[in-house]
């Protein structure tokens, strides 16, 4: 039996109220208010597809350094690097055992995640474990329909042949150069065609074709489908497609349009993760990925679905949001405005790649050192033990700290230094089990934050060099 063994998701905590976008742009396009219901999940300035992918994996499989899947596949159309494998950054941030790990970025289509999942399932069919993470952080033009619709999120699906919670029954892939929208090389934004044409010639024809081919191959009746997942930014389309196919209305999955937004290539996995939270043994789950054709996968839920999960899941993240009403902040974080950042932002952002490579145990994987002579944990790892009663030379072994809980020993909220989201919070964090480091903090709730606050650490953006197209990552403390 091959299939899904675990699932998880990540939603940024910031939830932009769509009404503020519609209100700000009503002078220009009053029609936007028709899309103004609810909110959408948006990345903080220090989040991107890589950082969200790390979080989604952890939500799926937990923070367990040394985990050794055979493959880590990252699907997205908004990867920060066109040439530096993004999935490798995710793998190192997760501190996976990379000694025999296949990594791959899958991109260029809204279908990337389903194609990635099919590849992962092929790997599982060979008796190995693979993880597909889909993550998306799309930019949209100010006052566009896309700005009202797009959200940011990531989801992770682990596959294998043991402890399967949803067995792969069958799959079908069709490749058709149907251009509902595209984003050319060097372009920041999508260019799309009329929605009615996309609906009638695209969703209503291409998806049913693929689904029917799959159902007949599998010998399954459309009426037996318990969960139908079709991500689309057209609200009524999933129900229309379902009706055409003969799938029950209650099987149609909520597209999370008003709570998360449409999260691009990640959306299908986000919806799958959400639906699996509600699935019962025996349920048939039909997943369709649309984009230059269609991938369709049919799963059957097993008894193992009732095994308790690790992470928050989609539901947990949905209820963990923070309403954001500052449209300008959203525009700033997404580089949609030419904003005065101040002379203090004009620092040398050169990526010293050789130094970064040496430091990557700390910067990518948040590894400290543990002294084999006295067991003292220290950050960063050092030639000499920091314990004044020890001081041993060359005794430190890599010690993963990413899962450790910490406590804020000292802190401040700095308005002088440059930060995309001032004030900049940073301070000394002391970890349970030893080790401490002066580090940045993110997602601070100014009302409740103080000395003694409990924190966990998260892989986030540290610095963005728009000129060179480079970005640096490090770990930040976030209040638990």
């Amino acid at each position, binding site marked *: 039996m091959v299939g899904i063994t675990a699932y998880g998701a990540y939603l940024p905590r910031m939830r932009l109220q769509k009404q503020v976008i519609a209100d700000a742009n009503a002078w220009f396009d009053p029609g936007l208010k028709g899309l103004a219901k609810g909110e959408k999940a948006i990345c903080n300035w220090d989040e991107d597809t890589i950082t969200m992918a790390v979080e989604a994996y952890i939500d799926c499989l937990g923070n367990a350094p040394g985990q050794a899947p055979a493959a880590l596949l990252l699907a997205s159309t908004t990867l920060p690097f066109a040439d530096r494998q993004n999935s490798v950054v995710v793998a190192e941030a997760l501190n996976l055992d990379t000694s025999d790990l296949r990594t791959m970025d899958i991109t260029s289509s809204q279908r990337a995640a389903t194609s990635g999942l099919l590849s992962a399932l092929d790997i599982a069919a060979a008796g190995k474990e693979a993880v597909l993470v889909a993550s998306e952080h799309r930019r949209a033009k100010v006052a566009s329909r896309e700005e009202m619709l797009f959200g940011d999120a990531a989801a992770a699906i682990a596959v294998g042949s043991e402890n399967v919670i949803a067995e792969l029954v069958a799959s079908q892939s069709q490749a058709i150069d149907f251009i509902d929208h595209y984003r050319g090389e060097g372009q920041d934004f999508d260019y799309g065609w009329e929605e009615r044409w996309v609906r009638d010639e695209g969703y209503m024809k291409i998806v049913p074709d693929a689904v029917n081919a799959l159902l007949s191959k599998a010998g399954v009746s459309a009426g037996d489908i318990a969960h139908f997942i079709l991500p689309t930014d057209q609200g009524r389309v999933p129900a229309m497609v379902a009706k055409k196919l003969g799938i029950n209305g209650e099987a149609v999955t909520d597209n999370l349009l008003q709570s998360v937004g449409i999260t691009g290539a990640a959306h299908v996995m986000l919806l799958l993760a959400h639906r699996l939270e509600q699935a019962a043994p025996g349920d048939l789950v039909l997943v369709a990925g649309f984009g230059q054709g269609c991938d369709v996968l049919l799963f059957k839920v097993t008894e193992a679905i009732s095994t308790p999960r690790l992470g928050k899941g989609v539901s947990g993240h949905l209820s963990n949001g923070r309403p954001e009403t500052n449209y300008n902040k959203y525009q700033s974080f997404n580089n949609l405005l030419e904003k005065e950042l101040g*002379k203090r932002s004009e620092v040398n952002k050169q990526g010293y790649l050789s130094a970064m490579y040496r430091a990557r145990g700390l910067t990518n994987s948040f590894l400290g050192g543990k002294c084999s002579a006295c067991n003292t944990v220290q950050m960063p790892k050092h030639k000499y033990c*920091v314990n*004044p009663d020890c001081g041993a030379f060359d005794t430190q072994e890599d010690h993963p700290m990413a899962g450790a809980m910490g406590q804020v*020993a000292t802190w401040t909220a700095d308005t*002088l230094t440059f930060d995309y989201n001032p004030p*900049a919070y940073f301070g000394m964090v002391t970890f349970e089990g030893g080790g401490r*480091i*002066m580090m*940045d903090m993110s997602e601070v709730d100014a009302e409740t934050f103080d000395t003694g606050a409990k924190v966990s650490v998260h892989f986030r953006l540290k610095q963005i060099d728009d000129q060179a197209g480079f970005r640096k990552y490090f770990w930040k403390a976030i209040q638990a």
Partner: protein
Amino acid sequence: MASGIKDKVVILGAGCSKFGERWDCEPADLMAEAFEECIADAGIEKSQIEAAWQSTGIDAYSVGPGAMPLSMGLRLPYIPVTKIENYCASGTEAFRAATYAVASGACDIALAMGFEKLKDTGYGGLPQRSRGVANDLYYPNLSAPGMFAQLAAGYRGKYGTSKEDLKRAMAHVSVKSHANGLKNPKAHLQRAITMEQALNAPMIAEPIGLFDCCGVSDGAACAIVTTPEIAKSLGKDRLIAVKALQLCASNGQEGGYDGWDGSYVQTTRIAAKRAYAEAGITKPREQVSMTEVHDCFSVTEMVTMEDLFLSEDGGAVTDVLDGVFDADGKIPCQIDGGLKCFGHPIGATGLRMLYEMYLQLSGKAGERQLPNPTVGLTHNLGGFPHQNVSSVAIIGEYGI
């Protein structure tokens, strides 16, 4: 233990430029201003200086590397000149080097010159700069007030001091220094402020507000040192001698090991103990007449009172509010206005402090002269509260 520096070297002369936004001055102009006062005070010729040390903190915004700025700036007579940088202790380091050179017998007369041109950045506050290629990858992008605000959080965490009480003590520190600076024509900021102003000023880095921060300025200060014997031979009768010069650099324990709670500065405590031992001071609160400490921020000065053992641990808030360190208090602190009013041209600061102590001990401090001080202590602190360099210098009347 080594015999120490006590009474082996004396200050022959000292000088200090006006500190401030010296838009019209090159560093060499500032150096010359301080040097002319200093050499006239010393009563020697430039040609008698046998070695010199130059302290500057931030190359990029001053004059570039090496000894050229000082050597060329003063047209020194082809002597050994060395540039020193050690964070905010740079000025005291230059003085230490010159003093040790004289004490060793390597030269008879040496110059220590510190200067900095901070106002060529185009913005307020200290210049934004790298902390090193590897460190920049993970250090927070902390501003100087952001660094020292950590002390406030650590202090509150340890002693349970309320935010309000701590802020009032911090405000008192600044109000006191502004009152002192008002009487100093060389200070950058020469105006009084009220408690209300200090308490209600815009927040810079919680809980450090605008008036909890020292100024940012251009300036230069210097000292010429020699042996007591040479000073006497030059006709000096009231000799001001070096009693102790101590420095302590963190090795990373505070920031990397769990013993430190962020409420104090470990290096200052160690340097202070060594300095008191070197100077033969056993009861600092009774024996130290006055201090110039590194009040980059009000909270730093407050915590430093405990680190120098002038206040009990946890007692600085009360001592500060009781006026112990006011101009008319038991141990006046920043009688010249401190970094608060002078600003902090990094390389100059330590020497500016020594200049004031020298004036006070010589009875030449004018309107702000304290009655009969005998022992003056200066303190610098550079880096972060959790990893830094701290210096403590003690000077006093020769032979006592």
